[in-house]
């Protein structure tokens, strides 16, 4: 085997290789002086400029080019007992824009990603309704349809960071999130079709997989903006995202977005299933726990530079970029600091601001090559300002597990390497 892995370096070893190469050209890069010699990539005829590439149909459904093979979901094996009931992380450190491709959007399964065909799919509406109904997939396609961009964040995103800095990389600290354009039908239409009885106050939704992952949702939310989705980013949901049908619960924790949605029961009270009592409840310092903590608070993170996306180009122009989102609306502003929070600058928000969706921010920074403590701070459309970890701990202690939306700090060293740290 003489083949080198053709991956862009995110590892330490690859990083050092990159830095060595960058240092050699650093002066040139910084001052834009003449090149030392003619670049053979320009002066010599390259194979791709002479011969053929792939014909059409070489890949009927394409995957990213091999040079991007390191941009993949990754899991943290010590977090869970087994990959069948586990979670992995979106490589947000290597993505840009706001839409997450389905193929690298994080997965969370409780009994594995099942294969359920459209033909075998059934959706039941039952409970406190005038007429319990069964829909086929073909029935769903005939309801009036909508498209919306929404983020889905696991309530446990950043949950490993409560007690101290733990995981070194934005993929691992903040990668339990994705953002897709969903197409589907408002859940309200299905409930109206069955006719909700006046005593119905909640719905209980469950999936068709073996875990069935049931969650209770107040009827008000169900009738407001919940979407029964069958497409994401224009194509069918991927198997791992609930093909053929999943529920979207905009702005609320990802566990409620039941995949392989098979049943919606209208109930008078919450069912208080395992996923809403023993899990997804937030224990405070005095031992009591908050339940029904559904909304995701405003949050942001710098995706690059970050531990997996170090600076390899030396001093000079540097793009600081990241993501911001809020379960209560849009993001109105993101501020960035490079000195650990002494002074802040307002970053540039990319256009396309959607309600309860990821926003992309950029700060074009002239880096002097000295070490930085970089943070981002989101402000949402309600005026809520993302808190520091210290402030959150003062209210909640360190045993909440879920809903950690604190400001994240990356320590960028003069070498360009970055580390997950906490600051005073």
């Amino acid at each position, binding site marked *: 085997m003489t083949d080198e892995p053709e991956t862009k370096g995110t590892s330490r070893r690859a990083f050092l290789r990159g830095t060595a190469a960058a240092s050699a050209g650093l002066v040139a890069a910084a001052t834009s002086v003449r090149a030392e010699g003619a670049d053979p990539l320009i002066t010599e005829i390259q194979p791709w400029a002479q011969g053929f590439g792939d014909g059409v149909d070489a890949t009927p459904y394409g995957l990213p080019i091999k040079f991007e093979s390191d941009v993949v979901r990754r899991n943290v094996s010590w977090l869970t007992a087994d990959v069948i009931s586990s979670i992995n992380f979106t490589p947000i450190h290597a993505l840009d824009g706001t839409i997450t491709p389905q193929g690298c959007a994080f997965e969370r399964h409780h009994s594995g990603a099942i294969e359920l065909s459209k033909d075998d799919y059934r959706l039941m509406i039952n409970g406190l309704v005038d007429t319990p109904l069964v829909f086929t997939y073909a029935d769903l396609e005939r309801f009036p349809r909508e498209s919306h961009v929404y983020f889905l964040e696991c309530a446990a995103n950043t949950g490993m960071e409560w007690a101290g800095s733990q*995981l070194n990389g934005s993929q691992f600290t903040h990668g339990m999130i994705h953002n897709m354009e969903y197409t589907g039908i408002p859940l309200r239409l299905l409930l109206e079709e069955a006719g909700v009885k006046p005593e119905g106050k909640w719905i209980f939704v469950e999936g068709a997989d073996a875990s069935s992952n049931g969650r209770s949702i107040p009827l008000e939310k169900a009738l407001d903006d919940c979407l029964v989705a069958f497409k994401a980013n224009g194509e069918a949901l991927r198997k791992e995202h609930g093909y053929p049908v999943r529920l979207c619960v905009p702005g609320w924790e990802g566990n409620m977005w039941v995949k392989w949605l098979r049943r919606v029961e209208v109930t008078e009270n919450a069912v208080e299933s395992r996923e809403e009592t023993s899990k997804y409840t937030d224990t405070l310092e005095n031992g009591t726990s908050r339940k029904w903590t559904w909304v995701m608070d405003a949050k942001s993170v710098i995706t690059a530079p970050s531990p997996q996306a170090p600076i390899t180009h030396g001093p000079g122009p540097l793009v600081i970029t990241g993501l911001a989102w809020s379960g209560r609306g849009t993001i109105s502003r993101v501020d960035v600091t490079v000195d650990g929070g002494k002074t802040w600058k307002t970053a540039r928000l990319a256009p396309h601001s959607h309600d309860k969706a990821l926003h992309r921010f950029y700060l074009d920074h002239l880096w002097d090559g000295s070490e930085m403590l970089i943070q981002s701070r989101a402000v949402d459309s309600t005026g809520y300002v993302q808190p520091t970890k210290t402030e959150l701990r003062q209210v909640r202690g360190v045993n909440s597990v879920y809903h950690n939306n604190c400001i994240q700090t990356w320590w960028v060293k003069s070498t360009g390497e970055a580390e997950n740290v906490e600051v005073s």
Partner: protein
Amino acid sequence: MSKFRNLVIGTALISAMAAPVWAEKIGLGRPALPEEIAAWNRDVSPDGTGLPEGSGDVLTGEDLFSANCASCHGEFGEGVGNWPKLAGGKDTLADDDPLKTVGSYWPHLSTTFDYVQRSMPFGNAQSLSPDEVYAIVAYVLYNNDLVDEDFVLSKENFAEVVLPNAGGFIVDDRETTELPIFTREPCMENCKQTVEITAHASVLDVTPDVQDDTAVVAEPAAEPAATETAVAEPATAEPAVEEPAGVDPALAAAGEKVFKKCAACHKVGEGAKNASGPVLNGVLGRVAGAAEGFKYSSAMAEAGANGTVWDAATIDAYLADPKGFIPKNKMSFAGLKKPEDRAAVIAYLAGFAQ
């Protein structure tokens, strides 16, 4: 021409009526039949709504738990490895490292019943009868010192059981406790005098080494962990497995797919270790109950002592009917009904020497 006019009229009518029509019923779907609702509508609520008729006692529950649950949750609900602990943790919720179990944390017994009935056992969900679920839940209560060993749980007495942490929850109060604090004008200049680093992720060093992922692509089986990584992530290349003579590669490949049903508990490949099931490297030719360091049921250990050796024939018979072939062994798996699936898995396993 007349057709066109009709279309225009029709469209105009629909536009005018669109909103009221949707507010009424669209007329899609069909009524759900009572037996269909009964099949799926099995959730159980704190007030007991949804409980089936039935009952079960602690001692019956102990046997059922040992057979169906203990491989992950431990014989007494103490948990194996990273699998959930179901018992213990009393008065630890305010500690630095609280132990959250059915006894110490769960507010309602209905949650345990609901979860066991709908989602357990892991890999064989919805296989327990209502009586069996009552018995297992009774045993979980017993393990938490909440009932005596002669306790019988039934639909009738279910609501009488109050769990210790029933009063330990409050409804989300962020709106009053947090929003007023965090809704404010953000500071932009001179926000603090000094900044010190107070914690480093590198101290703990628990981040997965990204290099391991890429190493799998370039150098198969270079790292002990590589095989597991590759099995878990189909996106990365499979490490090359040395096929012994006589194994049909196509059959072994089919077996790899079937083995996904086993992989939750059984590990194979370089560096594989015992998990909730024994490691299966070199299982062909191994004496039953002989994987080093694995805690077997006495039934399995006895089978080995009596001379049972795993070969194609015995594994086939075992997988066809795990509880029939070795009664009271603790593998909670219903088995593989199709002979071709069993043959494929055996071919796959033959590829992993000790």
